[in-house]
């Protein structure tokens, strides 16, 4: 059975300063039941504005937002059946944990004993023991615990759609990863539909069924995290999702069966996994782990010099400057070089992974 999307955004725009600034520029977006979609982009790309418009905290200048098939234009936030976990968490400082979580239910006018039961269940869901935490003041909680309270407070009202505005930005990496995994499992368990707004591509990749990359108010690419990482459609998207090596294309030598052979400005020809109409300013892009570094020339490789090398979390990385002056990052799980700064090395690129993209 075909299910209807929880959220449908059609042709949404939000301009400021009488149209001079296009914060959100004609975007379309669907969120299916049980799906987390991340909106990923640099600050000022329009992702937060989009989220605020969905919540009703900001109004669009054009376009339509539908929640569960109903146009919500003109509906204030408290009538939209969405939940929002704020970047600042926005825990009410004058209320206990229990009062915070119960707030939405009180506004719905539920009976006291029903509220009690739901609050206890919500606190258990986010792994805060109700006996221990219900009576606590927000000032007595750690950052991770506040995070859980904010989540419980939003989930307890069972909104049709949950919006996350980078709620984990303030946590350190380890806790953030842990919370992301946990949030993901809660979302699966409840079958929540959610929009997760962030500039942190790692969290977005861990959390989402689909990722949408935004820049300057426009959606650049949408797809699963793997799709976007493996087949970015622009240099911007590739740069935004982790480390990328970029070589400018001088000439396309051959295009056949959806593959290409190109001459780069590094002086070497490369086989790449896609083809396309390449105008001015096209690039070959590939990831650091899509390279192989050799201490001796294997033939058809780039020659370069190691500038520096690091070892981090089981990965060896080398910064290499090619003969033509291009900088490159190579990465491997094994230390196949044992080389240090100043050594000459040769680099090949996995032809099944390298891609050509426009600027």
């Amino acid at each position, binding site marked *: 059975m075909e299910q209807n999307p929880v959220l449908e955004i059609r042709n949404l725009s939000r301009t400021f300063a009488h149209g001079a600034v296009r914060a959100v520029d004609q975007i379309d977006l669907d969120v299916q039941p049980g799906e987390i979609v991340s909106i990923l982009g640099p600050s000022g790309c329009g992702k937060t504005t989009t989220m605020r418009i969905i919540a009703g905290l900001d109004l669009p200048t054009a376009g339509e937002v539908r929640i569960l098939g109903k146009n919500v234009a003109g509906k204030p*936030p408290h009538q939209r059946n969405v*939940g929002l976990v704020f970047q600042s968490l926005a825990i*009410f*400082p004058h209320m206990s944990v229990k009062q915070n979580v119960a*707030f939405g239910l009180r506004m719905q006018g539920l009976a006291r004993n029903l509220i009690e039961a739901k609050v206890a269940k919500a606190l258990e869901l986010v792994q805060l023991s109700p006996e221990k935490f219900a009576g606590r003041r927000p000032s007595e909680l750690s950052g991770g615990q506040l995070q859980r309270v904010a989540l419980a*407070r939003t989930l307890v009202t069972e909104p049709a759609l949950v919006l996350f505005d980078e709620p984990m930005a303030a946590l350190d990496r380890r806790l953030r990863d842990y919370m992301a995994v946990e949030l993901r499992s809660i979302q699966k368990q409840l079958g929540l539909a959610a929009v997760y707004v962030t500039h942190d591509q790692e969290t977005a990749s861990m959390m989402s069924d689909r990722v949408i990359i935004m820049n300057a108010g426009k959606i650049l690419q949408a797809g699963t995290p793997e799709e976007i990482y493996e087949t970015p459609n622009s240099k911007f998207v590739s740069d935004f999702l982790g480390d990328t090596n970029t070589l400018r294309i001088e000439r396309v030598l051959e295009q056949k069966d959806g593959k290409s052979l190109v001459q780069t400005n590094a002086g070497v020809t490369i086989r790449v996994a896609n083809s396309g109409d390449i105008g001015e300013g096209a690039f070959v892009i590939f990831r650091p782990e899509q390279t192989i570094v050799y201490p001796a020339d294997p033939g058809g490789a780039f020659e370069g010099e190691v500038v520096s090398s690091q070892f981090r979390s089981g990965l060896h990385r080398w910064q290499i400057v090619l003969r033509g002056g291009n900088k490159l990052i190579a990465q491997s799980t094994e230390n196949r070089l044992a080389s240090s700064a100043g050594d000459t090395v040769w680099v090949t690129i996995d032809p099944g992974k390298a891609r050509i993209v426009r600027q």
Partner: protein
Amino acid sequence: MTAIESSITPLQSMENDAPIRKPQIGLLLIPSGMLIGLLLVCALVVLRMSVGERDAEWTGWSLKAYVQLASARNIGIIIDTIWMALLSALITTLVAFPIALFLTRTTSTLARRVVLIAILLPMIISLLVQSFGWMAILGPNGLLNQAISAATGIERPLSLLFNRTGVLLGLVQTSIPLAVLPAAAALRSIPISLEEAANVLGANRIRTYRHIILPLAWPGMAAGAILVFGFNTGAFAVPLLLGGLKVTTIAVVIRDQMGSLSNWPLGAALSVLLILLALAVQSLNRLIVRTNAEIKE
């Protein structure tokens, strides 16, 4: 912490990371300390006079002044004074809230500046001048009565001067800045995201104010109300000019006793009462601070 205190409390890190060579910050208080010390001596002199004999304030000992203070007439005046201070504190706080809200919410710098200057005017202009201004407006043939009788045909429709209404109006108007500034400081410290969170959680505007904004702004509003109450228990110029002979306050009686009637002990006893009132109000303030200390980290 009250809004006033939190705005002047140093950053936590400044307290913890004390520099190796501590500057002698106590020196900063010497000039004002000397003045306040002098004032304390005066207060002690007043205390001594209140238990002295009339015409022998420095040598005699007597509680006669306090017996006189407890006379029916004086008790009436004391209750009157406290009642009007209380009422003016309440009204001023209610009037101040929307002004404070406007000051914190307006995006127009010009509007904020203009309103702020208008709010601060009572502190800049002499109380005497302001009271005379009210007399011109409220008097039997004042602007207000003329306007109303022109509109309705009733002659001298309202009696606003030389009664409590006039005094209250004057007290409220002259103490508005005392209530607006702490309330605005408290409102400014409430992040807009709390309001938005309440909104998304299903609270409409009225409920957001009731459950979020007012509880969080309350310490600042209370601090303002206490300031207004303290300020108005000692009010002199406003009740003297707008109350005429009908409405008398403690401060006016003190002037009469120490001036024309030269009953220094009674005047001193009333002054002691005023000082005690001020101290009581201050400790009330501390109480509010303590109950709210846990709210604002």
